[in-house]
């Protein structure tokens, strides 16, 4: 269940209007009331990026994501939120979320991470890919100056999460990789307050920044968009291999990770692809990694395809279970039996869900109360 923030406007110092996430999606672009620069009238906020190299003639090379954008003076990287200013690379979105909300953690979705709790969820604009089906393109595919934003330094986010009694902060909606500095510092501030941080990401990130972030994150959800390079090239405008590398790295670093696979009719819904994905996951991530097969709805540039048939999702789930994976979920079909968590030992239902609502959670001390099987995840 969603609940609104009980926060006064004054707690946000930007002076820009309050808007909820859903309102934001309709209003950030094309508004005649754009916020320009900082609320105090100074120029755009700049925060020096952490992962980049300087090059001759004031060029910089970004080392945050696998694109490794080489950016000239006064130009920006592919993400649109990092700018070279006189040979120094800056994040333009540090402390500048364009939206915040309190969501059920199940919405991310993270099913094995503090089920039934809420996450203080924030996003800045920007993304390092350009998925044709993006459901949040009005924030992910725009630039900072095209959106209203709040002035929320890391400590303020942590304080808000604490005052709202959310046990976690989620970096979500757009692509948190592009605001990694802000995410990292906010996670540190949150950890000081006993609030965990979760990254909801496409996993298109270089090893070093991922290692740095893993130091402060409690869980990660990775959108594995497909299991072919062709799909990543044509539909995502990215690459598969670095995402798989990230998943393997997270496993190695022992960060709780769940995977979402958005099943798009005709583009990534073949049995062979499901099987290869499942076999790869078993081999490199283990049988206990949860995978959510979720339903596509026509969005953005992919308006010509129908929503994913339920049977396709069920087929994907069966293939993955047959490959030996234990926790395979179906998403975006509320009420489906594939939303629940079952014990891989005794097969009994342990968590009953409907949409983002946890109706029953029987897991006790991280295990099945019926057979004692340990259920992987972060439960407290």
């Amino acid at each position, binding site marked *: 269940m969603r609940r609104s923030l009980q926060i006064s406007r004054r707690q946000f110092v930007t002076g820009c209007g309050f808007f909820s996430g859903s309102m934001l999606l309709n209003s950030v672009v*094309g508004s005649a009331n754009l916020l320009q620069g900082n609320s105090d009238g100074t120029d755009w906020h700049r925060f020096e990026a952490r992962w980049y190299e300087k090059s001759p003639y004031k060029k910089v090379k970004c080392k945050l994501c696998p694109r490794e954008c080489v950016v000239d003076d*006064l130009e920006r990287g592919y993400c649109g939120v990092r700018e070279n200013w006189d040979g120094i690379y800056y994040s333009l979105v540090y402390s500048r979320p364009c939206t915040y909300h309190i969501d059920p953690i199940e919405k991310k979705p993270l099913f094995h991470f503090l089920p039934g709790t809420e996450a203080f969820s924030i996003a800045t604009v920007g993304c390092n890919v350009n998925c044709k089906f993006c459901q949040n393109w009005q924030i992910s595919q725009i630039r900072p100056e095209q959106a209203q934003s709040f002035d929320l330094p890391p400590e303020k986010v942590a304080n808000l999460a604490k005052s709202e009694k959310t046990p976690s902060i989620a970096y979500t909606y757009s692509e948190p990789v592009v605001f990694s500095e802000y995410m990292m510092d906010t996670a540190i501030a949150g950890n000081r307050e006993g609030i965990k941080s979760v990254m909801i990401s496409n996993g298109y990130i270089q090893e070093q920044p991922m290692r740095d972030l893993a130091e402060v994150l409690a869980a990660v959800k990775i959108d594995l968009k497909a299991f072919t390079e062709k799909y990543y090239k044509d539909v995502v*405008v990215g690459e598969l291999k670095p995402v798989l590398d990230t998943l393997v790295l997270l496993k190695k670093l022992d960060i709780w990770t769940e995977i979402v696979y958005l099943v798009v009719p005709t583009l990534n819904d073949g049995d062979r692809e499901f099987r290869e994905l499942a076999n790869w996951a078993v081999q490199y991530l283990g049988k206990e990694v949860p995978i959510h097969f979720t339903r596509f709805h026509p969005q953005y540039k992919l308006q010509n395809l129908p929503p994913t048939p339920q049977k396709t999702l069920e087929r994907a789930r069966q293939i993955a279970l047959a490959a030996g994976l234990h926790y395979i979920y179906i998403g975006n079909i509320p009420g489906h039996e594939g939303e629940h968590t079952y014990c891989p030992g005794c097969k009994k239902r342990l968590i009953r869900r409907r949409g983002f609502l946890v109706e029953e959670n029987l897991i006790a001390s991280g295990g099945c109360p019926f057979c004692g099987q340990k259920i992987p995840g972060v439960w407290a």
Partner: protein
Amino acid sequence: MNRREFLFRSIAAGAGFTFLHSMFSHKTKLSGKGSGSSVVQITDPFMRDGNDLDEKKLGKILDEGLSSLYNSASPGEVMRNLFSPEDVIGLKVNTLSGPRGSTHRELVGVIIDKLLAVGLPPGNIIIWDRSNDDLEGAGYRINMDNRKKVRCFGNDYAGYDKRLYLNGSIGSLLSRTVTDVCSAIINIPVLKDHGIVGVSLSMKNYFGAIHNPNKYHDNHGDPYIADLFELPIIRRKTRLIICDALDAQYEGGPPFKPQWNWPMNSLLMAFDGVALDRVGWEIIEKKRMENGFGSLESAGRKPQYILTAGQKNLGQSDLANIRWQKVEA
């Protein structure tokens, strides 16, 4: 009456429909291929007084260029045929590169003079680019609302149309300056090298009309730049292209780099953006060779998008089929 005026009047009187055809066929010329795409390169090596541009001389080469482009019509007639006093005309400048690497204000000034002479109210002329900051950084004075004067503002003021314009590889929001405010556009790019897409000329200049240009530099801008240029609203509204080659740059762009910038003292003018870009590319290649640089292809950034635009029939990309008129004032 000078020779040019006489010639024009003779043509108009003797075969009026010929020029009328020319008047109304500029859109045909924009789509160019096979119609003899013309690019006029007009140069005045003596247009500077010290470092300052002589605006009278600049106005003169603009007139001569227009006349050459329009086959001996008088420049005033050319402007009257291209624009009506009811038009709202957007002057799409390129101002990312600061005061020395952007579209010269002096050039924009003389273009405005020509438009005012046609009878356009000043408020119907809008100098625009991506942002107010960029415009101010290049020396332009922002005037968002005073319609008694020429207006000047960025997309950050105008906002973006909420419709998502889809074409091939691109999906973008267009500046409302393009979609709602202007009925016609004069595209005024700068002749310069570009470190990723090879050259930044007239087609690339429309990156300043969309909300997400950062998404379209992959693969050296190919086919993104051509796909953007193919949008009907852009093609329909672009009436004239005047490329600022007063100071041009053959390496290190798009930022201004004095060591690779040279005073070319020229304007390139065309209706066919693909042809103009192809000519501009050739000029940059030649200058690179003269200065010991390899070709753009050898530098790993051949502007293939220009050839793609030609293949898409957006204009003429084959130099052999471009009428490249070099005129010295």
